């Protein structure tokens, strides 16, 4: 153990150094721009992983909190209402607002499990962007809110380069990783795991399932509140169409691809999908165009591709690219011993089981 610590620190330091010099080494602003956007999705994936991966609550409307975070920034830091709360403060404010909505969404769903929970969160994911669309007198409806305040640091505005956003997002991810890992290895993290495995038994351990689940919703939402602020400030615009069901599915696909419940896996999954989205598909389309297939636009097949990835993963590597040991064991058991993995959460403990 002791001997490996310096090695780990060295590797981490190396990784940090590489990430820090990327904008200097690579003068192509498009690449840095891509990384900054992808970083926002890493944050989203880390947040959703708390809800789905740690606590086992299937949330199909996670983009709603992304919307709430983004719109918070648009409302509190633009000409729209003449409010100009600084970006750095908005990171906290939006995290708190999103967390609050996480609790509001969570509260009515506490009794629901599995499919039912998924359906309610799906509904929530639809309602939130619709609400921003319909509150046109405040949000400009489909046009969205533009000309958001530029963040600035020590009086220097970020400007139109992606580089400062890249660093901000990088810093947020670092904090997010520490937070996620701390949570995982704590009293609360164990409580989530216990609830995921057997809620009735968990309650017998003195775990308040209600507050544990609500904290998962709140913390997960807070991540996307932060991501929303960074994303909105960088894009300089928020509009309701950025936060549809497809975004929720995209983030969930990142978890499935990378390995639910595993922080490193989730990061890899989200980077891979962002890369596919922003580079691979447009490039493939370009190549097709130059080859004369002008009607081919692969970016239109984005969701088909996600579908293929999801199905492929389920068949080939169901626990994800970098699975957590626990998930892998669960899945293996599911394949060999359905009774063990069924997680039948009966309220009918011990009743005449023979």
């Amino acid at each position: 153990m002791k001997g490996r610590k310096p090695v780990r620190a060295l590797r981490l330091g190396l990784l940090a150094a590489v990430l820090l010099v990327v904008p200097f080494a690579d003068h192509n602003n498009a690449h840095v721009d891509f990384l900054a956007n992808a970083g926002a999705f890493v944050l989203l994936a880390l947040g959703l992983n708390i809800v789905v991966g740690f606590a086992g609550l299937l949330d199909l409307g996670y983009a709603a909190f992304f919307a709430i975070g983004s719109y918070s920034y648009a409302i509190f830091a633009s000409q729209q209402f003449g409010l100009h709360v600084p970006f750095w403060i908005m990171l906290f404010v939006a995290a708190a607002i999103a967390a609050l909505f996480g609790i509001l969404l969570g509260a009515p769903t506490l009794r629901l499990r599995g499919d039912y929970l998924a359906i309610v969160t799906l509904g929530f994911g639809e309602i939130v962007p619709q609400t921003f669309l319909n509150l046109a007198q405040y949000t400009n409806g489909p046009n969205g809110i533009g000309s958001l305040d530029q963040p600035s640091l020590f009086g220097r505005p970020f400007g139109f380069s992606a580089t400062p956003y890249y660093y901000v997002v990088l810093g947020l991810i670092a904090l997010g990783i520490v937070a996620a890992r701390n949570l995982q290895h704590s009293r609360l993290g164990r409580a989530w795991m216990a609830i995921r495995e057997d809620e009735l038994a968990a309650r017998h351990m003195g775990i308040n399932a209600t507050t544990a689940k609500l904290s998962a919703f709140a913390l997960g939402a807070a991540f996307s509140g932060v991501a929303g602020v960074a994303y909105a400030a960088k894009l300089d615009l928020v509009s309701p169409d950025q936060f549809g069901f497809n975004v929720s599915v995209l983030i969930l696909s990142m978890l499935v691809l990378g390995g639910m419940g595993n922080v490193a896996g989730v990061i890899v999954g989200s980077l891979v999908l962002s890369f596919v989205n922003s580079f691979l598909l447009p490039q493939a389309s370009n190549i097709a165009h130059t080859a004369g297939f002008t009607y081919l636009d692969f970016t239109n097949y984005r969701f088909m591709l996600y579908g293929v990835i999801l199905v492929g993963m389920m068949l080939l590597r169901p626990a994800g690219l970098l699975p957590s040991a626990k998930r892998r064991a669960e899945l293996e058991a599911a394949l060999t011993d359905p009774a063990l993995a069924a997680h039948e959460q009966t309220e009918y403990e011990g009743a005449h089981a023979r």
Partner: protein
Amino acid sequence: MRAPEPAFFELRNVRCAFGGLVAVDDLSFALEQNSIVALIGPNGAGKSTVFNLITGIYRATSGTVSFGGRSLAKLGTHQIAALGIARTFQNIRLFAFMSALDNVMTGRHARMQASLADSLLHTPRQRREERRVRERARELLRFVGLERSAGDDAHNLSYGSQRRLEIARALASSPTLLLLDEPAAGMNPREKDDLIALVERIRASGVTIVLVEHDMKLVMGLCERVTVLDQGRKIAEGTPAHVRADPRVIEAYLGASDP
């Protein structure tokens, strides 16, 4: 004159019905602190239902359950656990994909202080507490003879080990009342002997124990008092020898298809 001390634990005229089926009917009994009593009866008599009533999984249709003079009627399962009532399950309900150590540490949840912020930030006091709880969990694993399985996932343990792990997990909360639902089920005779010794040591540490068990040898060896249920009603109560000679008990067991 002094008011009588409230019983350590008491069920009074408790009834629990599921639709038309009365699983527990007008049941009363009290426990003295640091006693060990058995709750026996044929299959379907309502033994597990009594446990579920105590831990707040089921609610009594009428009657009261009280612990240290305090009614449990309005408390949730997690609150009842925090009062110091712990249990094991007839159908083992470990956290199957968590390590044995994590299972026991989770059992300590109610006695831990770490807040959400502590968990998020790993504050010094959070670290101290984690270290202490991990140490204690290891001790408990040693206590039940599982120290070498600390890192193994619960579902990989043998049946008998799983039963002992459930006991360690229950003990992690330092309970004053421990409910054991058929802890010897599926154990071989050697494991049963170990279990008897284990339960005796738990009792010696000051814990009050209610034991639901079909194995009469175990019951007779461990318990000074036995309560017999049949079809939700108490049909006998007393010392093991007394109960065994009771004609109603004999009839209940002979009348049932599976004695």
